């Protein structure tokens, strides 16, 4: 692993999040005296050790201080048992012998807490000298001579050196910038992926809602066609009158058309409960007239002797009628005497015994509000 890769792992190491096998390699590198990494590491570690400041401060039990102070002056400060109500600590806490300290969890401790100057003890800041410094230390005379020589040869060499140094620094900076940008791009990418997933989900939901609307629209169109046909037949006096005596038509086509085409009509969308996750329904209410139209789809077929009942819920549930399903799982109702829309809190559909019930007793299948 080259220096660059190691430097990339420094922040993980400082946080104690580097995997054990990489930790070893990192520590070798640091022990070899990479001053750039050592400096960076100390900055990261200072940041990491400040993290607890973000926690709300907690006052330890008041007895703790005296317990500790007593243990200090006691004869066996390092081995004293700390809890009166427990014979021993739940785990052997590394107390006196330092070699009991788990090497893994405290992998970044040794270099901060050397028991004694370790052989691979990291060199301190002062041990990192530039070559000029080293030269000066090793042989002041030689350094002076070299200085004179440099001067003698001319400022050219020196300026060349400076230019080179400056360029090297600039390149290193650029490289760091690029690396940082790369990281940022990677993170943005993962965030983008999350957003895309959310978008896909939203699209699916929207599509379902559109499907529901489409069905209603289709129904409306079909009803209008029926009405037109009926009107033509009525005018011409042809056609068997009973043929179109379906519940809806009988209840009043005029109402239905008016409600569905009224610009002031309010629409409520009901969705299926756990009892009928696929089900949905719509209610159109024409304000001021107490009339409305209810249309449900995908409700489960009714057990024998049962019916669905629609409830308008104000401060209490009011029955708005019972309905059954056609073979296509659809149910519909024309509504009369609906309370003023401002009083309606919710609509709900429940399963009730045939003929309906004065108040809801069975499971709720659909629920929704205006």
């Amino acid at each position: 692993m080259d220096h660059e890769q190691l430097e990339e792992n420094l922040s993980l190491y400082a946080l104690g999040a580097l995997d054990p096998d990489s930790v070893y390699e990192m520590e070798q590198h640091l022990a070899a005296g990479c001053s750039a990494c050592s400096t960076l590491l100390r900055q990261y570690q200072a940041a990491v050790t400040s993290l607890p400041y973000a926690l709300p401060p907690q006052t330890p039990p008041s007895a703790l201080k005296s317990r500790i102070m007593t243990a200090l002056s006691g004869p066996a400060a390092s081995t004293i048992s700390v809890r009166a109500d427990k014979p021993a600590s739940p785990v052997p806490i590394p107390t006196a012998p330092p070699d009991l300290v788990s090497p893994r969890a405290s992998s970044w401790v040794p270099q901060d807490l050397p028991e004694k100057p370790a052989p691979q003890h990291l060199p301190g800041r002062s041990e990192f000298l530039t070559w000029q410094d080293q030269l000066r230390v090793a042989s002041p005379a030689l350094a002076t001579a070299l200085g004179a020589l440099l001067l003698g040869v001319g400022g050219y060499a020196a300026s060349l050196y400076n230019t080179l140094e400056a360029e090297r620094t600039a390149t290193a900076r650029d490289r760091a910038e690029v690396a940082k940008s790369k990281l940022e791009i990677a993170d943005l990418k993962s965030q983008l992926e999350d957003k895309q997933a959310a978008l896909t989900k939203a699209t699916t939901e929207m599509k379902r809602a559109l499907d529901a609307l489409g069905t209603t629209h289709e129904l409306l169109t079909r009803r209008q066609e029926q009405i037109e046909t009926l009107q033509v037949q009525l005018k011409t006096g042809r056609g068997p009158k009973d043929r179109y005596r379906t519940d809806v038509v009988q209840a009043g086509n005029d109402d239905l058309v008016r409600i569905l085409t009224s610009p002031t009509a309010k629409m409520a969308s009901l969705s299926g409960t756990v009892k009928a996750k696929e089900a949905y329904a719509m209610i159109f209410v024409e304000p001021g007239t107490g009339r409305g139209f209810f249309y449900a789809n995908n409700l489960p077929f009714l057990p024998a002797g049962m019916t669905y009942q629609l409830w308008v819920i104000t401060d209490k549930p009011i029955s708005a009628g019972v309905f059954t399903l056609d073979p296509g799982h659809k149910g519909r109702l024309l509504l009369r005497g609906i309370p003023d829309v401002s009083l309606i809190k919710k609509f709900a559909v429940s399963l009730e015994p045939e003929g309906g019930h004065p108040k809801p007793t069975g499971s709720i299948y659909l629920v929704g509000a205006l």
Partner: protein
Amino acid sequence: MDASSPKNSSTVDRELLARVANGDQEAFEQLYEQTSSLLYALVLRIVGKPGDAADLLQEVYLEAWRKASNYDSARGAPIAWLVTLARSRAIDWVRALAARGKDVTASLDDTPVSYLVAQDPDALDIRAASERQALVQASLKTLPPVQRLVIELAFYEGLTHTEISERLNVPLGTIKTRIRLAMEKLRDGLQPLWEEELGIPN
């Protein structure tokens, strides 16, 4: 940074620790006063139970007392040394319990992730009691929740990046990237802090 700010754990000076290293119990008592609420909060956050946290904190202070002479001021501020010690011991404790299959496994694995993320953003405002606290909290707030989460999991749960990747079911590379980005932001945000700590070589 203001070096003359009132006594709190940010200003444990090296001299105080030197006195502790020389066996000065009064200095040690002072050290306890200045650092115990921070270290207790840290240990409690990691081990979860107040009783365990108090026991553990006692061990940490006794260890600090014995090892104060090993403290190397070139490595960082005294408080950083204490935080590192306390965190390591607390995580050792949790690991040892987990290895024995104690109930702490549950708290490790079942800790709701939302708790880890949610506790920071706004709750932090109220509690900023000192300049340093405010700085750390502000820096943490600049992190997106996903980055704050990996920092929390690594620092307080002691998870490595591989373990975090497994826990969150997120690719390893993504986790590493998040940690690096978060750490860079924290380092930048906390620059006044580490400059103060590392800038003066004794």
